[in-house]
């Protein structure tokens, strides 16, 4: 018997709202299976189970906000515990593709509901079924829904299954508004002005909530973590030339962006300097083991998440590039996994081409280092006694002085710089 609890998805999370169950009583759950979608102040997260067993009871209904640590579901450890076993614990390869079978309409209560009364358990079941049906309607493969549209639908009380779109486009906010406006009388149809499209009235609460959690965590970081800051300018002449040469021959889908090289160089350097790759907990440093590179991703409409690219040092540059694209896509679509938000060992923030020349970041506790890359700019640069124009970037480190000194940090930055001089070896 094991409890599935509301996980802590990072130091900035105190509570979460259960949005969807992706399992129902009787389902077998394996370690790593995605069992629920949880909404935190920052993002929708797909939460994996860290325990194994058969779902006996779902204790929390979708829409409920509960603190970290509260039990959400009870898992038993065998077929016998399964309710009426309509499909006895097959190995569940289909868990990635959300479980569905919308046809089943479980009306039976679990026969052996531990602790709770049967009627209460029974009440949970239809909810799960309903959610499963909703999941089918909203998941890729059938219909895609933008995050904004999903929020709007919830607020306007629009059933997404009834929303139609032209061709195979995802359901967008305007489709939801149209659906809300046309059939049924809807309280206060949204006003027309187009600029509202991107900053509709309903968005501030979510954006405010995200600002609040970011502010709280960063305040704590600034209060508790004695930061030191280092900065160096890196010549990217070789790296950019190598990248363009490589990309010239390739189809778009295989091209790399400069950030892929920067992240790989950082991951390798972090692996070589374990003192910067880990966590400060209970007054001491715990090395992170592998390098799970947190990548700061800005979300459209404001806010920031920094999911982990697991084992980044062991990925080829191509794999890293693919992983980065995947993370960004899922971060913006609200499909990040719990483990990606909770186990970064060091974070990189890359303000990219539209940004500024340098970023002096704030460490994301309990991590002990944050690496920043500024925009790549062309600057006069001396090479072998001659001045030339070279692409350069400003590389920075915010380090936790409790864990390391500037000496270690400097060696680390130099290591990244050196690796970027040999892009072909990354």
């Amino acid at each position, binding site marked *: 018997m094991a409890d599935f609890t509301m996980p802590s998805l990072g130091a900035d999370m105190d509570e979460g709202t259960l949005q969807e169950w992706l399992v129902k009583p009787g389902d077998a759950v394996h370690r790593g299976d995605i069992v629920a979608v949880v909404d935190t102040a920052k993002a929708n997260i797909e939460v994996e189970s860290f325990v194994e067993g058969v779902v006996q009871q779902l204790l929390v209904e979708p829409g409920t906000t509960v603190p970290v640590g509260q039990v959400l579901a009870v898992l038993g450890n065998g077929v016998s515990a399964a309710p009426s076993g309509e499909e006895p614990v097959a190995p569940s390869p289909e868990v990635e593709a959300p479980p569905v079978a919308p046809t089943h309409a479980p009306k039976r209560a679990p026969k052996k509901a531990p602790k709770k009364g049967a009627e209460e358990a029974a009440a949970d079941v239809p909810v799960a079924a309903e959610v499963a049906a909703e999941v089918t309607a909203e998941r890729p493969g059938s219909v895609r829904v933008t995050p*904004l*549209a999903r929020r709007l639908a919830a607020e306007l009380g629009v059933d997404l299954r009834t929303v139609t779109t032209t061709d195979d486009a995802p359901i967008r*906010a*305007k489709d939801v508004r149209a659906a809300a406006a046309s059939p049924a009388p809807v309280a206060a149809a949204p006003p027309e002005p187009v600029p509202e499209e991107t900053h509709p009235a309903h968005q501030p609460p979510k954006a405010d909530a995200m600002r609040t959690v970011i502010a709280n965590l960063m305040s704590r970081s600034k209060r508790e973590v004695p930061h030191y800051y280092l900065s160096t300018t890196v010549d990217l002449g070789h790296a950019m030339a190598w990248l363009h040469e490589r*990309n010239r021959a390739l189809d*778009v889908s295989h091209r790399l962006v400069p950030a892929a090289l920067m992240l790989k160089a950082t991951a390798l350097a972090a692996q070589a300097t374990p003192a910067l790759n880990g966590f400060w907990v209970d007054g001491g440093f715990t090395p992170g083991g592998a390098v799970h590179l947190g990548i700061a991703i800005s979300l459209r409409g404001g806010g920031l998440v920094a999911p982990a690219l697991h084992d980044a040092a062991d990925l080829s540059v191509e794999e890293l590039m693919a992983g980065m*694209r995947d993370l960004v896509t899922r971060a913006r679509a609200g499909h990040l996994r719990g483990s990606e938000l909770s186990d970064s060992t060091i974070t990189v923030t890359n303000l990219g*081409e539209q940004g500024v020349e340098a970023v002096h970041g704030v460490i994301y506790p309990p991590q002990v280092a944050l690496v920043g890359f500024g925009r790549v700019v062309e600057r006069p640069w001396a090479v072998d006694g001659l001045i030339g124009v070279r692409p350069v970037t400003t590389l920075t480190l915010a380090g936790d002085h409790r864990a390391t000194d500037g000496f270690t940090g400097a060696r680390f930055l130099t290591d990244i710089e050196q690796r970027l001089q040999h892009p072909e070896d990354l």
Partner: protein
Amino acid sequence: MTRDATTMSPAAARAAIAAAITRIVPDADFDALPDDAQLRAELELDSLDFLSFVELLSGSTGIRIDESDYPDLATMGRAIAFLTARATDGGGRGGK
């Protein structure tokens, strides 16, 4: 590369560009976007978004887009000119 592009009207080019961008920025508002506005800055496209945009656009029009062509996609106006010109070249290697 889904089809041969022999000619492309400016309207078709605009539609293709808008469709590709919409996949990346679902709520992009083209009415509020002048043809000379910098797409990347206005729509907050980072390098990965831009790559996806190029990929989608290349896929839907069948026109090869190299890295050296990226500046030609800076604004809606330039991108339309680029696509229509490249399409009449036969979709292959244009100048450069």
